[in-house]
């Protein structure tokens, strides 16, 4: 099992294999995102309360989901890098952080636009908004640490410790902020006020979410491949691969 995994995660093998996957992943992401966008912007019915403006949900909710998913992915990769010294996991953790930060920024920006329209304000210190903002800072801290340490192995180990400390803290931050907020003001208008969604709105949302996920997979692989080339640039196989 371990032998199989270490062969699977060996960098040359991974580099070649992922090169074959990437075109398929891009195609799938593009297809899902096009279908989801048409479904969300054209086919889905108008919301009776929020009118057309609610349609930003089809970008906002998937990016918020991805903001959390990517951190979990990063922490999982960090854990395997830390425990088993898997080089591939180190690389995946490192390259997924900027993508996660981008999803988080997108969730914050779209949320802010939506809020400007619906709540008449760009920002409220609502529990959900605040904990996403803090998550954004956690991503930026991870990236700053990676950028500050030149030696990649040391950067990976330091980043792994930080990501794992962060993962323990995320629930604490989330619940503390929730408590802080409920003390000061009542629940703000939340999109989960309407408990269930009609299927006409749900399927474009799920399609978009899947599209975001596949996009993430493709982007992570592209970034990981260039990171592999940079790290292993003095190795024979990289010189051969590039010369080909």
């Amino acid at each position, binding site marked *: 099992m371990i032998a199989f995994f270490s062969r699977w995660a060996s960098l040359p093998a991974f580099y070649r294999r992922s090169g074959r996957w990437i075109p398929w992943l891009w195609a799938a992401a593009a297809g899902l995102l096009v279908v989801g966008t048409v479904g969300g912007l054209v086919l889905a019915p108008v919301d009776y309360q929020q009118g057309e403006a609610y349609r930003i949900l089809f970008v906002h909710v998937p990016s918020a989901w991805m903001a959390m998913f990517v951190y979990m992915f990063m922490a999982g990769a960090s854990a395997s890098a830390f425990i088993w010294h898997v080089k591939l996991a180190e690389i995946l953790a490192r390259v997924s952080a900027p993508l996660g930060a981008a999803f988080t920024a997108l969730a914050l920006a779209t949320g802010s636009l939506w809020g400007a329209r619906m709540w008449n304000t760009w920002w409220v210190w609502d529990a959900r908004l605040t904990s996403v903002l803090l998550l954004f800072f956690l991503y930026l*801290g991870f990236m700053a640490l990676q950028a500050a340490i030149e030696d990649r192995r040391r950067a990976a180990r330091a980043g792994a410790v930080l990501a794992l400390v962060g993962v323990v803290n995320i629930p604490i931050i989330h619940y503390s902020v929730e408590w802080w907020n409920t*003390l000061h003001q009542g629940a703000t208008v939340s999109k989960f006020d309407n408990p269930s969604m009609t299927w006409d709105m749900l399927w474009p949302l799920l399609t978009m979410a899947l599209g975001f996920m596949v996009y993430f997979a493709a982007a992570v692989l592209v970034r990981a491949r260039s990171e592999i080339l940079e790290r292993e640039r003095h190795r024979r196989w990289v010189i051969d691969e590039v010369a080909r």
Partner: protein
Amino acid sequence: MAWWAVLRRDLLLSVRRLGELGNPVVFFAAVVSLFPLALGADAALLRSVGPGIVWVGALLATLLSLEGLFRADFEDGSLEQLLLSPHPASVLVSAKILAHWLVTGVPLLLITPLLGVLLNLSPLAQGVLFGGLLLGTPTLSLLGSVAVALTLGLPRGGLLISVLLLPLFAPVLVFGAGAVGSALLEMPVLPYFYMLGAELALAVTVVPLATAAALRASLGS
């Protein structure tokens, strides 16, 4: 025994450099006295925002004092000897963190009542503020030690430490300042103290392990 030796040594080193010992306290007092200058001297306003100001000031003072936690030991190599010793690194590290709290956290606590008077805080708010800081500042020192260990020997580590730590400090700030806010509204305070205590208990058990791992990562062993 080794734990006591490390604690004693760190305390002794701090006491022999009394000048440095005062810096966090002076910084704390200066930051807190900047706020009335910025916000205006209205006593009612200061009474309502005062506890938050004290908390943010204590948090920043802890942040800035953290940089020196391992620096001297890193530079003269005794940190490596500490990690090479037969005793578990996490236990020895916990002694260093405790020493750090005793020489920075405790002085901050001691000056808090004075700052509270400057901000017109009521005796009740003063007491709750003090209790919250007593439970909260050790957590800050503990969490901080991880970030310091991660950034050991890096240029401009101080700013990086702040970037890493500020989101992690958020819960302590929420519960600590929340306790005072709750007391001012004559609502129960204990839940906040329980949460601060729970965070401290979690940090005491987990953080020394993480800091030891971070030190190993930074020293490349």
